[in-house]
């Protein structure tokens, strides 16, 4: 079928892994580039018919948007539907309708060209807006224009209704209105140029169990319809026009991944207990309520970290109490008996919300973030706490404060919690009064005063990502020093040991919610250090469970004890790898393949 007999050149793209799995297939490229509209004139007698064509196209688009609106509300909730409400207003706008009709009549041009003229003028105005956020709203206008043009030109929207056989969806970006039209049974994988692991496409892919890679920069410009693609959602690699060798290699990777996945999922209903009967809690890190399904299907017992930032930073305005309450309660109601640990807003650092305003910090990771921010903006803090305590009435909720570095922060935050609870009770709200309150241990100072902290909170959860970066003074995004970022640094292991000891002494539980347990070395050493709970991304849970169930607590304890006495991360790593090879060779498959 391909007329080009010349081999297309293989190109490898690397992006951000957003949903695990391997997929092979043809590219279904969503045409994101707008087609130029040519200036075409019509005769005077054709004017009325052309205006009719234009108004029918508007009506057809209105029907289309109405359907999408309902589909989106059903799928993602009322909040996401709102964007289409504004799209419908743009469609009905007097400029859109009136100016275009006037242009058809006065300039005697086709409706498509008249619309193009009208919106070009609007878009030029937008391009002159100083404020970046306001300027970017032009994307919504283009989105509406694209829809009307497609209806006008009698083309089906190059959307996903055209996806009628299995393919890999390639796009510059996927908006909620795009994905609402996708029939997931035809979608083998999503790959997008933009977006991070919390982009809409990424979340959707994870909840549908479809591999996805995002942040590929310019893949959509290289991939042509029907080009062959391999998507590796585990490492974030996408191969365009793969050679037979690459295909063979990835077939093997896929077979291994599938087998492992099948095997791991059989563990779903078993507890995370070691061979000698030591049980740990295995729970999920989630960012949006939809991920609860994912957590449950992967065998999580509860949510160990419910990040609330996503809800705040993806919107232009602050969510109110009712809206937050419904959002948190939707998670709690799905897991009424398992713990759900809700972390209060952790903005700042790398995820400054738009509505914080201009916040220029020379060093945001040491700046106004986590509990420092919420204690300064108690209006935001109180609203969030009210919503959380109300959601807590539906299950077993625990509240956790991020970025604590001094004891006063905990005292102040607890005081506010008490006030909020009193006020809610006075107003006869149902609340979860007994909700435990804990802190994240992610600054070295918090470790150093862990004994004091432990007397004033109900639990600790160690955020290893930040703790490692602060303790080692390494920004892992900085390629010159990122080689130093290593959670197995003996200094880190000692901080973990001290934190566990302080918790034990004060009879509170201590968990970990960073990425550390996602490597086998990390998981084994954390187990041996005596952590009570691991919380990780849902798809990692089966692997961690398998590891825990394959070893004895006793041997990991001696593994950790030896590691604590070592001088370098390398020794620690080799020590653990030796143990795996000698004692538990069946776990060898979880070791990363040695770079050859």
């Amino acid at each position, binding site marked *: 079928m391909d007329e080009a007999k010349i081999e297309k050149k293989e190109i490898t793209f690397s992006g951000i892994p957003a949903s695990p799995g391997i997929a092979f297939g043809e590219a279904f490229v969503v045409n994101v580039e707008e087609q130029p509209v040519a200036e075409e004139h019509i005769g005077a007698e054709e004017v009325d018919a052309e205006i009719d064509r234009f108004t029918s196209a508007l009506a057809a688009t209105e029907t289309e948007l109405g359907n999408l609106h309902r589909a989106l509300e059903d799928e993602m909730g009322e909040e996401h539907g709102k964007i289409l409400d504004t799209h419908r207003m743009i469609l009905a*706008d007097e*400029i859109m309708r009136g100016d275009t009709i006037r242009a058809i009549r006065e300039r005697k041009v086709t409706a498509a060209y008249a619309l193009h003229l009208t919106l070009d003028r609007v878009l030029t105005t937008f391009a002159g807006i*100083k*404020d970046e956020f*306001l300027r970017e709203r032009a994307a919504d206008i283009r989105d509406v224009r694209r829809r009307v043009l497609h209806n006008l030109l009698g083309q089906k929207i190059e959307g996903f209704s055209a996806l009628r056989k299995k393919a890999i969806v390639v796009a510059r970006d996927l908006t909620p209105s795009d994905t609402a039209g996708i029939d997931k049974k035809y979608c083998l994988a999503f790959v997008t140029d933009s977006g991070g692991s919390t982009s809409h496409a990424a979340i959707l892919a994870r909840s549908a169990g479809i591999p996805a890679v995002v942040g590929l920069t310019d893949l959509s410009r290289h991939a042509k319809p029907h080009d062959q693609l391999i998507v590796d959602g585990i490492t974030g690699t996408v191969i365009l026009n793969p050679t037979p060798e690459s295909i063979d290699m990835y077939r093997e990777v896929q077979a291994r991944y599938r087998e492992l996945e099948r095997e791991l999922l059989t563990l779903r209903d078993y507890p995370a207990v070691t061979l000698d009967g030591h049980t740990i809690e295995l729970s999920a890190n989630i960012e949006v309520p939809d991920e609860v399904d994912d957590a449950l299907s992967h065998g999580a017992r509860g949510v160990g970290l419910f990040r609330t930032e996503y809800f705040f930073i993806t919107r*232009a*305005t602050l969510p109110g109490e009712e809206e937050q309450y419904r959002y948190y309660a939707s998670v709690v109601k799905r897991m009424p008996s398992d713990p759900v640990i809700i972390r209060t807003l952790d903005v700042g650092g790398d995820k400054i919300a738009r509505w914080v305003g201009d916040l220029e910090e020379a060093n945001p990771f040491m700046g106004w973030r986590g509990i420092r921010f919420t204690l300064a903006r108690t209006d935001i803090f109180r609203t969030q706490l009210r919503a959380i305590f109300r959601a807590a009435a539906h299950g077993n909720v625990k509240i956790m404060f991020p970025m604590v570095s001094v004891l006063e922060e905990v005292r102040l935050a607890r005081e506010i919690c008490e006030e909020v609870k009193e006020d809610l009770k006075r107003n006869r709200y149902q609340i979860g009064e007994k909700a435990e309150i804990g802190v994240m241990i992610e600054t070295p100072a918090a470790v150093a005063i862990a004994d004091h902290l432990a007397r004033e909170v109900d639990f600790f959860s160690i955020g290893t990502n930040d703790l490692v970066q602060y303790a080692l003074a390494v920004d892992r995004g900085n390629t010159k020093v990122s080689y130093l970022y290593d959670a197995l640094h003996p200094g880190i292991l000692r901080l973990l040991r001290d934190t566990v000891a302080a918790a034990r002494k004060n009879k509170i539980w201590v968990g970990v919610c960073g990425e550390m347990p996602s490597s086998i070395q990390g998981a084994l050493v954390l187990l041996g250090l005596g952590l009570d709970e691991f919380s990780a991304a849902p798809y990692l849970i089966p692997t961690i469970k398998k590891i825990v169930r394959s070893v004895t607590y006793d041997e990991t304890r001696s593994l950790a004890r030896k590691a604590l006495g070592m001088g370098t991360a390398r020794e620690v790593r080799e020590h653990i790898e030796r143990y795996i090879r000698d004692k538990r060779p069946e776990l060898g498959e979880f070791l990363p393949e040695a770079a050859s």
Partner: protein
Amino acid sequence: MVTGIARVKNKNGIHLRLAGELVKAATRFQSRVTVSKDGREVDAKSILGVAGLGAEFGSELQFRAEGSDENDAVAHLVSLVENEFARETN
């Protein structure tokens, strides 16, 4: 004819959704209503016009209404921007 001035107090400015709300409110009045910023005047009943003003945080909007309910229109729209929209951040 009645005019009134409102200052944009929410951090994000009058983005598309708020422009939509403003337009919905303006449409409820019979009067012809315009809004201008930095000398550029648009129809307050057009979302493309209002959003195209790019009214950022701190900017000043002037409403102008002419018609049977001109007083109410200006008072209502000024209050919408200064009070209800301002609450979007607080």
